[in-house]
């Protein structure tokens, strides 16, 4: 009988499966940290996890609660700083995968982490870009974690903090961003990807127990579901690694 698992666990494992051996993985806080660590421990042992703060390949015996956590500086191959970290994200000889979170996303995978409402006097203010805009500009691919809600999957962002496929088609390249773009969106309901040509979001996988209709209802724009398939649930091995090795204190797994 399959084990029970939390949303965060399903999301971490769905995202982790995108990481290839040898990838350089840029991790943020929360689920993103879980996913990056899980990826390295389960699928891609030669992947290197690093943080915008400058910590490269830490031992991660305990899960960090912030990208500046002391745990991102322990057992690393190098402790540097922000400028070093961002120049790694964009380095042409590295294949870099970035995990980001956002408050809003549009159908081209553009992200808002700045504010809702008028920019100068917002209804809700968020943390701001941090390194998200930079990473979205430079990484080989971005995987975004979202709570799947209509108010978050929107036709038009209140503020475009981080560029995904911009206005679709080749508009991202025409901006002068030579590589990268939105690779996938991993939510509490499923996994979305982007059409090769139009760069529009489509449903790739829905989680066991989630209906396609529920995803359509919770998406604020029209989404192609014609290619949707059910996701493979986390295996016992994956879950055990996640719980025993990645987040033994269950700080993030639980949610």
């Amino acid at each position, binding site marked *: 009988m399959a084990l029970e698992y939390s949303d965060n666990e399903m999301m971490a494992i769905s995202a982790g499966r995108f990481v290839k051996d040898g990838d350089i993985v840029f991790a943020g806080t929360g689920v993103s940290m879980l996913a990056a660590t899980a990826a390295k421990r389960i699928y891609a042992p030669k992947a290197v996890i690093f943080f915008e703060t400058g910590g490269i390949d830490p031992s991660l015996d305990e899960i960090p609660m*912030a990208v500046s956590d*002391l745990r991102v500086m322990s*057992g690393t191959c190098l402790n540097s700083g922000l400028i070093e970290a961002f120049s790694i994200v964009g380095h042409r000889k590295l294949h870099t995968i970035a995990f980001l979170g956002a408050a809003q996303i549009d159908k081209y995978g553009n992200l808002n982490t700045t504010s809702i409402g008028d920019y100068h006097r*917002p209804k809700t203010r968020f943390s701001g870009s941090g390194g998200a*805009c930079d990473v979205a500009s430079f990484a080989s691919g971005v995987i975004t974690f979202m709570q799947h809600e209509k108010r978050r999957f929107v036709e038009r962002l209140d503020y475009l*903090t981080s560029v995904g496929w911009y206005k679709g088609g080749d508009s991202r390249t025409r901006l002068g961003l030579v590589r990268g773009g939105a690779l996938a969106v991993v939510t509490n309901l499923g996994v979305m990807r982007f059409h090769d040509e139009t760069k529009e979001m489509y449903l790739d996988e829905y989680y066991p127990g989630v209906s396609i209709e529920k995803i359509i209802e919770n998406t604020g724009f029209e989404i192609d579901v014609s290619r949707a398939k059910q996701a493979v649930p986390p295996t016992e091995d994956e879950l055990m690694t996640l719980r025993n090795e990645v987040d033994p204190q269950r700080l993030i797994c639980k949610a």
Partner: protein
Amino acid sequence: MEKLMTLDEAVRKFIKNGSQIALGGFTVMRNPMALAYEIIRQGIKDLHMVCHSHGQALDVLIGAGCVKRLEIAYGGAGRYAPTCIRFKKAIQQGDIEFEDYSNYQMSLRFLAGSLNIPFIPTKSGLGSDLLNYEGFSKEIRTERKVATKKFEIMQNPFIDDKDDVVLLPALNPDVTLIHAQYVGEDGTIRIKGLTFADIEQAKAADIVIVTCEEIVPRSYIRLDPDQNSLPPFFVDAIVKIPYGAHPTGCFAFYDYDPKHLNMYRVYANDDKKFKEYLDEWVYGIKNHEEYLNKVGSDMLMKIKANPVIGYAVGLDRR
């Protein structure tokens, strides 16, 4: 060492109403908290903060009403406050003037300041609203230490094809505040663990104030100078103040204090309770010994870092 002074002296001598200030550290790490508290106690107003990703020190300063103007990439304290609470309220209420940049953009602006060049190019932000919205008004842009433009987009002159490049104006703050692990008796600074943008911020500034955990002999700090972070001549004031970054962490010395950060979140969420927090933890504190007594030896032991591993192994961080 003539630059050695008390917290009170350092702040009184170098920070004025309206000063432009950069903070060392990042969200919950090596924030110059003791300096932030002293700025609040001295009633300094109208600060212009220039920040990449900042958390605790910035939020307390904003909450205490010391900040008029803010250039920032990120206001958050990790999982303890994904968006800094007093920062969020201040912007939503229209209490402060603010301008958004990204982390790399802000770091590059400090780098440009440290290299004494007027601007620096990047491709970061092309297509984003960081380059569509200006937070500062035209009036603000005529003021001291405010860039005349948020950015400039130009064509790369080294290639013929269309190739847009973003030029970012350099930052040269009046004062940069750093908390470091070690200062040598010769004034040399050594930061352990990640340095974030501390080095660039320090070299870009007119004045640098460093608080530290320990002052160590010249012979020690000069035995392996490859490890040092700043030469003495960039530093104007040095204050020894152990646990001067609490409740944020300090690699190899102490972890962040989860209990305090959780408590802070609760207090910061309520205007009345936030006043109580300031009264209890800032205004009501006579000296740093009293502050550490309030934290309690029990908690100081819990957050004490394993000096080899660098953090407090097994600390309850919920």
